[in-house]
């Protein structure tokens, strides 16, 4: 059958089937199984009411069970078996094999880098954009434009940024804008300011901010003033501050590189083939897409702040920076957490960008692409499933946190 016809047919069968199911199952319940008449009318109505929710839920539960819950269990099982030995149980052999694969560690390391950089940068840019666009008249248009990449597919974005990063041989006109800009630098005073002094200043600022953050995070644990944080909170605080300190160290290394490194001026660069840097060039694509999301949510949160608190701060003589960091930030902190975790999940699943732009070459591998590689190119279901389980494991804390919050909210 022609696929388009099949599609129309499926819509009719799907929609019609759903409606028919819901309608007739209700009729069946009310008229045939538990009819609301006769000697048992009252009892029957009560029984029907007990069954009815499950009629409404059945298709959804079936679909969720088959397409999301069952695969989790099945993947755990697959990761413990070996397909080439006739699905024999092999214990943790797949995990051991994966642990010996340097590509896996490269993917894990890159994923960690993505996990730190992308949510942080997207949230920061989103907050900046939200704060700035809320104050100007054409803010809504600006918001639309920054939000627009959300509608563009990862693959489309990959093509867009491949053009940005494109390189032509030296001496010919550059058609990638990044190389065109790069060739403007010649090692003179302009390059000194833009490529050395500016990055150093930014890195120093970032390192200082993160060091402060690490201290704020760790202080209640080392010097509890009025209450001692619980075990889980202590662990989270310790973990977050360790990550902050690691990033501070990375910043310091970056500063050293910016001071002493030599730059290949005048030579067009193949940006996507320079290890470590290329991961950042891939991250820019995701940051470009996710900033709009962060901006929309944070903008709504900023507008939800009661004006009295800000007016009171102004009367007390607070300057704009103080208002932002001391009045607004604490009030939107829960929203920032939501944005951060949502983007974190997107990052953990990032596949298309890497698949389309580098396919994991030049040390840009990430877990999702590694998994796809193992599953469909090496046909190694065991190791592929093990990699999927690693992604699941990384998502689990967020999953628990979300469920915990949802339950708290419902009470």
């Amino acid at each position, binding site marked *: 059958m022609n*696929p*388009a016809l099949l*599609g129309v047919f*499926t*819509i009719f069968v799907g*929609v019609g089937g*759903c409606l028919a199911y819901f309608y007739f199952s209700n009729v069946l319940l009310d008229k045939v199984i538990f009819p609301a008449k006769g000697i048992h009318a009252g009892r029957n109505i009560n029984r029907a009411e*007990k069954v009815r*929710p499950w009629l*409404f*839920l059945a298709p*959804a*539960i079936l*679909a*969720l069970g088959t*397409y*999301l*819950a069952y*695969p*989790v269990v*099945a993947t755990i099982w697959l990761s413990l078996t070996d397909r080439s030995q006739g699905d024999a149980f092999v214990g943790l052999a797949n995990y051991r094999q994966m642990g010996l694969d340097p590509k896996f560690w490269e993917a894990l390391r890159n994923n960690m880098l993505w996990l730190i950089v992308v949510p942080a940068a997207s949230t920061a840019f989103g907050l*900046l*954009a939200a704060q*700035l666009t809320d*104050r*100007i008249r054409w803010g809504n248009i600006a918001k639309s*434009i*920054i939000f627009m990449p959300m*509608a*563009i*597919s990862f*693959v*489309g974005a990959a*093509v867009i*940024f491949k*053009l940005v990063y494109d390189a032509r041989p030296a001496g010919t*006109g550059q*058609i990638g*804008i990044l190389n065109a800009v790069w060739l403007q630098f010649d090692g003179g005073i302009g390059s000194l300011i833009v490529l050395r002094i500016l990055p150093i200043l930014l890195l120093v600022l970032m390192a200082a901010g993160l060091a402060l953050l690490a201290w704020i995070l760790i202080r209640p644990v080392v010097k509890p003033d009025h209450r001692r944080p619980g075990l889980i909170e202590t662990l989270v605080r310790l973990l977050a501050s360790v990550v902050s300190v690691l990033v501070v160290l990375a910043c310091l290394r970056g500063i050293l590189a910016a001071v002493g490194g030599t730059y290949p001026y005048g030579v067009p660069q193949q940006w996507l083939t320079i290890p470590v840097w290329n991961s950042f060039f891939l991250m820019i694509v995701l940051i470009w897409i996710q900033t*709009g999301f962060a901006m929309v*949510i944070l903008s*709504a949160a900023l507008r939800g702040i009661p004006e009295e608190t800000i007016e009171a701060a*102004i009367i007390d003589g607070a300057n*704009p920076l103080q*208002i932002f960091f001391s009045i607004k930030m604490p009030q939107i902190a829960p929203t920032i957490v939501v*944005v951060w*975790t*949502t983007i974190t*999940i997107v990052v953990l699943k990032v*596949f*298309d960008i890497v698949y389309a732009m580098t396919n994991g070459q030049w040390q840009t591998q990430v877990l*999702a692409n590694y998994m*796809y590689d193992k599953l469909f190119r090496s046909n190694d279901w065991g190791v592929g499933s093990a990699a*999927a*389980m690693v*992604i699941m494991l990384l998502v689990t804390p967020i999953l628990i946190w*979300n469920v915990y*919050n*949802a339950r708290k*909210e419902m009470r």
Partner: protein
Amino acid sequence: MDGMAGGKSSLSWAVNISVVVLVLLWLFPTVGLLVSSFRTADQIAGSGWWTAMLPQERNETLRTDRPGDLETIPQVDGVYVVEGNLFVADGRTEGGAAISAWGTGSLAIDEFVPGDTAPLDDGQAITVQENGDYVWTSPTPQEGRGQRVFTTAATPPEFTVENYDNMLFDPSNREGMTKAFFNTLTVTIPATIIPILIAAFAAYALAWMDFPGRALLIAAVVGLLVVPLQLALIPLLRLHNEIGIGKGYLGVWLAHTGFGLPLAIYLLRNYMVGLPRDIIENARVDGATDFQIFVKIILPLSYPALASFAIFQFLWTWNDLLVSLVFLIDSSGDTTVMTKQIVELLGSRGGNWEILATAAFVSIAVPLLVFFSLQRFLVRGLLAGSVK
């Protein structure tokens, strides 16, 4: 609300400029692709897209009119003279381009400026003007082909829809996007509509019906919201193969339905819970069944939430690559979708930006249209959907 006493106007300037910079940064990459898709392959390869609005400096090899085509070659003061315009001789209109330098040998293409006279072999000579007019003189009648002239000319900006013609309307183009476009559409529409209905019923039950285990189910939905679909690939593909669906549209529709359900149920339940209790209870008192309440009251009132989810699911299924790769596209490639086609083009036509840019823009255009026309629903859905 941030009425600072002093420095207000300078602050407002700073804010405006920062936003302009931010917006340009975010817009630039997409505009680059859009502009490139309207340029010819030569133009794209020759200069950056940001110069597309400026006149292009271009080197060309042109020829004068063929003396062999002329019936008689006029004689002026004892020499034979062939006159004409280089651009007209090339089949173009006069006055389009302005020559800044020219030459007669391939090793010195910018030897002369317009108005100069260049000596040729056998006592011949040629003069070329800025607008392409030439005078070619010779002591003997010119014969055969026209004289070769190398020009450096500034041509005005030029845009073409030829790329779109090629990628969309040329049935002989095996790399065309038309088939992939319709395949994508075929995947998207059922995959958007079917989960809405299933989710709406479930959301109603979770919002307005009382039964044991409800809280647990809601928690499960919240949990499933973040389960990476990567886990589902192999088990489900195996399941599809076992029950005979294999790779194909049915499989991809089912998969998209399953993966879209948690968000749909979550969004719709959150919205339905906020509907006024009075209406529903009044209807119950009046003897309406749950089915009637749902169809006649809840569904129409939930229209904004339904629209939000529909847009999400549409964007997600339209832009998806992974699910189609695994559940739909078989080795025959007849069911390829646009994202897959673009990835393939990236591999095989890495440098042909006229093809890549056009292909990418064909696939981006529809979501962008949906985005700009239905943005408020999208924003509302995002605000309701992010787990608070």
